Each structure stands twice: as structure tokens, then as C-alpha cells.
């Protein structure tokens, strides 16, 4: 009855000794799963519960169940709508500019010349820096009274840091500076995936440059561009480090959801409400992630 399952390779008939595959699988996978469950998933359920309560970590009382009150408050308050719409505006501008600039850069660099890979790596450097320290460095560069930007462009005392109308755009500039290389790297890979013979064939047919661009270059490099698009959308939506170090949180900071969430949770200590806001953000990010993973799976096949 109990035939012991044997170790076989790809269903072939021979056996090998040692631990069974299933044992190894469990041994290798379980620690990671447990870690992820404890550090990521368990807290998420906890905060789901808290999002239905009135509770402040700071006061250390017990959470009071108020049902969907927090969500109603968030979805009906125009201030929070402004947060979300400003963030959407931020994401659209930043991602669009990064895609265009990154692709143009890639186009420039998609040539055969000496030290090409050196240049590409050099351009990739900003992306690898600590976003928080990039933010603080730009705060120095953008300083209204002695920053180099205002002097260089003769802008007088333009307040890049604490004027809420302007600091959204200074955050955008930093984000674009930092992440354009990301799009550039993916675009370079996309462009070099286009086989040379397609251009040669188009050449024989006397196709125009635009025709080749729209019908050969773009379609073939599109998958990588879409990866860049989705990745950047996700990251830009939850951007925190850069605006946090550039402007800090408070009344004057740009209306970005991650900043607002930090403000709610760790300055005002309104834990219940902040958990509800976190869940709304989570749903948006998960929707985009889902999109990305489906796309990845399709790509792998």
C-alpha cells in the first residue's frame, strides 16, 4: 500500500540517494516563507484590523472599533482627494519625462564607439545612490539663498524647498534626474534586441526613418519599455525618501501620499486613520504590481 516515493530525475527510472526532493524543497523554502509571513503578512492583517478602529499608538489605549469610519473620512475629505490627485499628477509627469528622456539617451548611446559601456555605467550611477542622500544633496543645490541653481539660472531667491507650489516640481526634477538612467538602461537593452537584418531589409524596401522607427524599433523594444513604465509607475507612486529629505513633512511639503501617510502615522500618531490610508495605497500598488507580474509571466513564455 505505502509505496515510498522515490527520488527520480525527470521521471527517469534510476534513483539516487540522500534526502528526498520534497524534504529539500521544504527545507529550502520554508524559512523564507516563515520570515515573510512574520515580517510582512502578519503586520498587514494587524493593520487591516486597526484601519477599522480609532486608535493612536502614542496614547497606548485600546483600539475602538468604528467600522468603515476611517475609509469614509478619507474618501469624502477633499484634502485627501487632493493628495491622491497630486500624486497621480506627479507620477504621470515624472514617468512620462523619464521615459522620453531615458529613451532619447539610450538612442544616443546605442552606437558603436569606444568606452560606450563606461558611459552607460556612469549614467547609471545616480540610480544606485541613496535616494535620501540624493534628496539632501539637492536641498543644498536648490537652497533659495545660496544654492547654485538660483545663481546659475538667475532666479533670485526662488524658494524650491518650502514653497508648496514649487517644491512638487523640485521633487520631480530630483526624481527625474535619479531615475531617467533606469529607463535608459532598459531602453539600451531594448534597442540592442532589434536584429540588424530587419533594418537592412527595410533599407532594401526604401523605408523611411520614421517608418523603421515605428514599425521595427518601437515594437521590438516595447516589452522592455513597458517593464520600465510599470516599474517606474510603482516606484514613483510610493516615492518617499526624496521628498522627505528635500522638503520634510508638514504643511509646506508637496502633497504626496507617502509623505502624508508618514505625517499621519508618525507625527500625528493617528494610527487608525493612517492604516486605512495605507490600505488604499496598498490596493493601488497591488493593482499595478499584478499588472506587472502578469506581463512578466507572459514575457517569460
Amino acid at each position, binding site marked *: 500500500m505505502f509505496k515510498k516515493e522515490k527520488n527520480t530525475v525527470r521521471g527517469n527510472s534510476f534513483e*539516487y540517494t540522500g534526502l528526498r526532493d520534497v524534504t*529539500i*524543497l521544504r527545507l529550502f523554502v520554508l524559512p523564507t516563507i516563515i520570515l515573510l509571513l512574520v*515580517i510582512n503578512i502578519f503586520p498587514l492583517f494587524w493593520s487591516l484590523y486597526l484601519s477599522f478602529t480609532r486608535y493612536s499608538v502614542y496614547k497606548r489605549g485600546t483600539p475602538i472599533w468604528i467600522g468603515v469610519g476611517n475609509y469614509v473620512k478619507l474618501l469624502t475629505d477633499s484634502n485627501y482627494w487632493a493628495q491622491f490627485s497630486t500624486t497621480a499628477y506627479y507620477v504621470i509627469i515624472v514617468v512620462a519625462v523619464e521615459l522620453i528622456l531615458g529613451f532619447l539617451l539610450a538612442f544616443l548611446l546605442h552606437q558603436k564607439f569606444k568606452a560606450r559601456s563606461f558611459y552607460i555605467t556612469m549614467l547609471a550611477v545616480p540610480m544606485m545612490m541613496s535616494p535620501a542622500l540624493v534628496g539632501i544633496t539637492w536641498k543644498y543645490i536648490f537652497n533659495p539663498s545660496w544654492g547654485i541653481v538660483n545663481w546659475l539660472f538667475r532666479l533670485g531667491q526662488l524658494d524650491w524647498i518650502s514653497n508648496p507650489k514649487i517644491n512638487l516640481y523640485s521633487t520631480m526634477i530630483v526624481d527625474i534626474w535619479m531615475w531617467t538612467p533606469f529607463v535608459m538602461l532598459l531602453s539600451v537593452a531594448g534597442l540592442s534586441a532589434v536584429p540588424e537584418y530587419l533594418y537592412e531589409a527595410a533599407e532594401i524596401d526604401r523605408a523611411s526613418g520614421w517608418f523603421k522607427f515605428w514599425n521595427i524599433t518601437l515594437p521590438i523594444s516595447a516589452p522592455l519599455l513597458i517593464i520600465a513604465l510599470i516599474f517606474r509607475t510603482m516606484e514613483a507612486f510610493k516615492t518617499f525618501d526624496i521628498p*522627505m529629505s528635500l522638503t520634510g513633512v508638514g504643511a509646506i511639503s508637496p502633497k504626496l501620499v507617502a509623505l502624508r501617510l508618514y505625517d499621519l502615522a508618525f507625527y500625528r500618531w493617528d494610527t487608525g486613520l493612517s492604516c486605512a490610508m*495605507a490600505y488604499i495605497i*496598498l490596493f493601488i500598488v497591488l493593482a499595478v*504590481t499584478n499588472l506587472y*507580474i502578469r506581463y512578466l509571466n507572459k514575457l517569460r513564455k
Partner: protein
Amino acid sequence: MTNFNKKRKCVPVMLQIVIIIVIIIYMLPVVYMGITSFKPWRVVFKVPPTFNFKPTIASFVRLFYQTSDYQSGKEPTAEEIERMDWKNRLMWEQTNQQIGGISEGPARFLNSFIISIASTALSVLLGTLTAYALSRFRMKGKNDLMFFILSTRMLPAVVVTIPLFLMFRFLKLTDTHIGLILLYVAFNVSFAIWVMKGFFDDIPIEYEEAALVDGYTRMQTFRKIALPQAATGIAATTVFCYIFSWNEYAFALIMTSRVATTATVYIQGIKGSLGIDWGAIIAGSFLFFIPVAIFTFLMRKYLLAGITFGAVRK
């Protein structure tokens, strides 16, 4: 579009010049950061910004040492200045101050270092094991598991920190090295799994099968056949995990207050007796950034794999 028409053998000199100019403009902020970190104190806030100064490492010294004013009437005489060690003399020349002991700086850099190393080691270990298992063994719902693993990484840091903060406070893990290490491992392990699975998938399975036929056990094949072949992949993953932990800011900001604070949080708010010490802030950022730049160049072949979670490997 003209370059499509030619075989791309040599690029016109003009185009090369354009590329180089673009790169120079692009790198200006980094260059400016480097220049600023060697500025003397009086030049840091100078309007208009000047580049005509004698470079000094005073900002780096202030990063690691506290400075204080001399009491009035006790300013050093010319003879005393002559007898000072180089650090004190530098401080006197720069800001008429003296060294007053070691600052928080070294401890913060050490924290960054310890936490990054430990979390990297753990996440690469766990990631490699899990990735190997997921790459080589049949399993129900593997794609769902991979999605689950990736989705934990995609959660915005600020969102998960609220419940994590509660949990850590309950477990007395706030402001401890172990707490931060655990967090970083949990966030890097998903990255490590995805990238490593990509690398394992690229290794032909035949070697391992041959070894199994020759009487190796699964564990032996893993150790002696698969691991050596994945060595470069493991190295690349390690460097990436290290950079992520080293650069991390949001968790460190929220979860630490005194003991386990890392350099990213510390550098942001360096204040000396002179107020916000922009010299030390920029010098600190620059110092912090140097290892990252070196690693970036070492890892240049794997940048694409790294930034796309192993989706693109070339």
C-alpha cells in the same frame, strides 16, 4: 533617424561630442557634491558659489569629530597653534574651533556597515536556497508563490512600517540592530529569490542530472555542481542586496531613534556648534556614495538583471 541607414561602424565625431556633453551635464550634481565636500567652511555658503578655493578635508573631519568654540580669552596663541595636531590646527584655520571628541558619525557608519553586511548575508543565503528549490523542483502553485514573494517587496515601505512599528515595539525590537537586520532581510530576500531564480534557470540542468546519476545526493549536487556555477550570480545578488540595505532610509528613520540609527538618517541632520553643518552633510553623502559608485562599476554587467528583479538578464 539617419543612423539607421548606415551600418553603425563609426559614429560621427559630432555625435560623440554631443554624448560626452550630455553625460557631463548629467553628472554635474555628483561632481558638485564632490567639489563641495572639499570646500572650506566659509566657501560652503558663499554667494555666488565659488570654485576658487583651496580644497580641505575639514568637512570630513567635522563628520567624525565634534567641534566647539574656544572660551573667550582662551584662544590659542601663535605658539600653541604651532604645537597643535593637524586636526585641531585645521579646525582653527577653518572656523576658529577646537576638536571636542568623536562625534556620532563613526558609530552611524559602523551601524550602516554591520546592518548591511548581516542582512545581506542572511538574505542571500535564504534567497539562494529558496531560488534553487523553486528553480529545480516541481511544486504546485509555484507561480502563485513567486507572486506572493514579489508582492511583499512591492509594498510601499511606509505602508508596512505602521504595523511593523507596533509589532517591533511589542517585541522590544525598535531601535535594535537585530530589528533592522530582520526588516532588511525580509525586504531583500524577495529580490534575492527573483534574481537568483533567474540565474539558476539559466544554468543547464544536465550537469546536475549527470552528477545524480553518478551517485551524488541532491545536497551534494547543490553544493558541488549548482552553487559553483551560480557563483557570479550570487556575487551580483550580494552586491545589490548590500547596496539596497546600505541606501535604505525609511525603515531606519521610523524604527530607530538612538542606538541603531544608520548613516543615511544621521547624515541628513548633522548639526554642529555652527548650526546645520552643510559641509559635513555633503561630505558625508559623498563618502557614503563612494562604495556604491565602486560597486556599480564592478556590477555593470548585472545592472539590468538587478534593477528588473532578474526579469531581464543580458
